[in-house]
């Protein structure tokens, strides 16, 4: 008995030890386990998908289970307005460009009903980039006018995906507006935000040029040359402007589901006045932060999020900028709410800026102190030296010798000594044309100096006394007299 008890106790300890180690191993295995095989996600129940017209999106999937989701999408060929005065026959999914927004979660089994309105002229199909299967569904969805076709697919990858028509010529079908977005949310859904909107860029090619009036036909040659007349958000110029602008309130987090249907151009998507706090790069799982402009490939998408902090109108553009201002790639987000000077003040001050000469420019009544007046000759010479250094030395040099062939000397200058009145006038009004100084000819231009009477008197007195000239004192009154002469 005793033996047995002893063995039992040691076995107990061993068992516990074994269990602990096993648990640790199992836990680490959990961590290293591969991601869920999404093909195995079970679907529970059926629902009808709620499709929305742009720029709105259906409500988030939240926590719901994967389900069988029935989607009914109708193709309508219908005339619309590209820009005031210009009409265009759009081929649409759901009657809008871009087509209806489809919202699903990973693991859903989508039963897709594609309906081609009987009045349509052409057969169409659909390729959804969220589909794993031939043609993205295009092979199974070719449908004649007046007919409906059904196929099903399971959403295996989360992300934001483009869908478009893929009937020949594919570029023409896409170029006429047959594209839209399908969102596959991850398990548990995307993080909730305050506002979500649907924006999709597309390029359009018309026979006439931008704004040409009337019903415009698709131009295949321009499309092949990738030379669009219109580059727009949501199918027409101004679709998201003014009364159609998106809205948000200060403090809200905005999420934009942005697609690019092409058919040709890549978008440099930017919101003027905001920075993307988060970008789901190319609509996938990688999240970049603090982005100004994000690239959205043709046939691709991106999810951008930003918190709006100040009121005003934010402008969405394709930053390949001529597209924004000349072809229509411009949309608006109106943010309302209280200002916040900590973040943005608007204009704080307006003033004059005059970059002229070495003299100080001041605004009238700007509160500068009164100029110090020279009270005797020595002061005048001393103040004059300061003026000379900052105004005259640049050309006439610190020693007053000037530059050969360019600037005449003021030191020991016969020209200066001959006529002090003329010297004063030269400083005030400038001088041009041929002169001879100390036997050398100069032909240059001296600009007039913006100096006060005091300053002119001071600088000339300095020159006459300190630079080997006739030591004449020049007074402010003499300067005034010369000024009044002209």
């Amino acid at each position, binding site marked *: 008995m005793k033996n047995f008890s002893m063995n039992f106790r040691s076995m107990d300890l061993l068992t516990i030890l074994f269990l602990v180690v096993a648990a640790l191993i199992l836990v680490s295995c959990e961590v290293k386990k591969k991601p869920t095989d999404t093909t195995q996600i079970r679907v529970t129940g059926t629902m009808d998908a709620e499709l929305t017209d742009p720029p709105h999106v259906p409500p988030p999937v939240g926590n719901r289970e994967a389900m069988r989701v029935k989607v009914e999408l109708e193709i309508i060929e219908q005339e619309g307005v590209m820009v005031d005065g210009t009409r265009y026959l759009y081929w649409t999914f759901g009657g809008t460009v871009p087509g209806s927004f489809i919202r699903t979660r990973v693991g859903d089994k989508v039963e897709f009903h594609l309906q081609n309105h009987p*009045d349509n*002229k*052409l057969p169409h*199909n659909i390729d959804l980039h969220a589909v794993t299967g031939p043609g993205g569904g*295009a092979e199974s969805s*070719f449908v004649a*006018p007046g007919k409906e076709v059904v196929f099903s697919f399971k959403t295996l990858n989360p992300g934001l995906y483009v869908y478009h028509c893929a009937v*020949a010529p594919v570029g023409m079908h896409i170029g006429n507006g047959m594209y839209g977005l399908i969102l596959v949310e991850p398990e548990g859904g995307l993080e909730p935000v305050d506002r979500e909107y649907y924006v999709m860029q597309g390029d359009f090619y018309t026979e006439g040029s931008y704004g040409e009036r009337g019903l415009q036909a698709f131009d295949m040659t321009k499309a092949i040359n990738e030379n669009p007349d219109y580059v727009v958000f949501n199918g027409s110029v101004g679709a998201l402007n003014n009364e159609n602008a998106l809205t948000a309130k200060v403090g809200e987090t905005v999420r934009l589901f942005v697609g690019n249907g092409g058919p040709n151009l890549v978008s440099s998507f930017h919101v003027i006045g905001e920075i993307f706090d988060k970008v789901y790069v190319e609509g996938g799982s990688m999240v970049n932060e603090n982005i100004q402009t994000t690239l959205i490939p043709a046939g691709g998408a991106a999810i951008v999020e930003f918190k709006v902090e100040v009121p005003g109108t934010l402008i969405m553009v394709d930053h390949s900028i001529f597209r924004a201002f000349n072809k229509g790639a411009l949309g608006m987000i109106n943010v309302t709410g209280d200002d916040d000077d900590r973040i943005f003040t608007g204009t704080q001050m307006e003033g004059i800026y005059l970059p002229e000469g070495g003299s100080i420019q001041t605004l009238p009544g700007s509160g500068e102190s009164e100029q110090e007046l020279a009270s005797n000759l020595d002061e005048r010479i001393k103040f004059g030296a300061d003026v000379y250094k900052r105004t005259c030395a640049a050309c006439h040099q610190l020693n007053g010798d000037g530059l050969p062939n360019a600037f005449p000397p003021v030191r020991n200058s016969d020209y200066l000594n001959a006529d002090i009145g003329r010297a004063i006038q030269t400083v005030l009004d400038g001088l041009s044309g041929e002169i001879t100084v100390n036997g050398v000819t100069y032909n240059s231009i001296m600009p007039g100096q913006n100096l006060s009477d005091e300053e002119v008197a001071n600088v000339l007195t300095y020159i006459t006394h300190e630079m080997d000239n006739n030591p004449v004192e020049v007074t402010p009154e003499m300067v005034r007299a010369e000024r009044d002469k002209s």
Partner: protein
Amino acid sequence: MVILALGTYAQESSMVRVEGGEYLPLYGSLDEPVKVTPFYLDIYPVTNAQFLDFVREEDRWQKDRPIRLYADEAYLSHWSGPADLGNSHPQAAVTNVSWFAAKAYCEWAGKRLPSVDEWEFAAMAGEDQYDARTQEEYNQYILRWYESSKSFLNPIGTGMKNVYGIHDLHGLVWEWTYDFSSILLTNEFRKGGNADNNLFCGASSVGATDLMNYGAFMRYAFRSSLKARYTSRNLGFRCAKDINDLEQ
């Protein structure tokens, strides 16, 4: 019998002789152009009024009569009654008719449906040329027609008139042909680039020089989306006749 003969005569005068020849259709290989023997083709597509005459005599083809095997639910849906056009224009091309119904009409009229080759051969003519397929105006006309809506409401004669004097092969409605389903086209237009792949070889790589193929692509694409019992608002037909029959 007399009435029928007169009727037939009247109908022949509304046909035109197409000389035929050789042509290279959208599909097929450069070494083997297709031969088309001379034939007669209706100048206009069959109208609502003409089809009304037909169903008055052959009442099994009236609206709601044919079984679903021969015509789908939308058969003659634009008419308000079995022998009543309602608001539909009598001179508009009759549409919402299945291949079976179109074939029956042509037989009643002593004629037949044209083959795809015959139809394409006659339709490659433009306003001035027998083969206008490389002409920009011809192709623009066709592409613009694809952009226009509800052309099925227009009366006959409002489409293109070609050099044979045949109207509306382009610009009005699609038209049934006898062997519309003989060209196999997969639903996926983007495969290929393979020269052996008949129709879809150029689908995704058509260049500017292949402009003429767009119009044809659309027609072949449309044809391949059809089944014989299908009806479509944009789909009508016209009849053809062998030369030999006439000369007997």
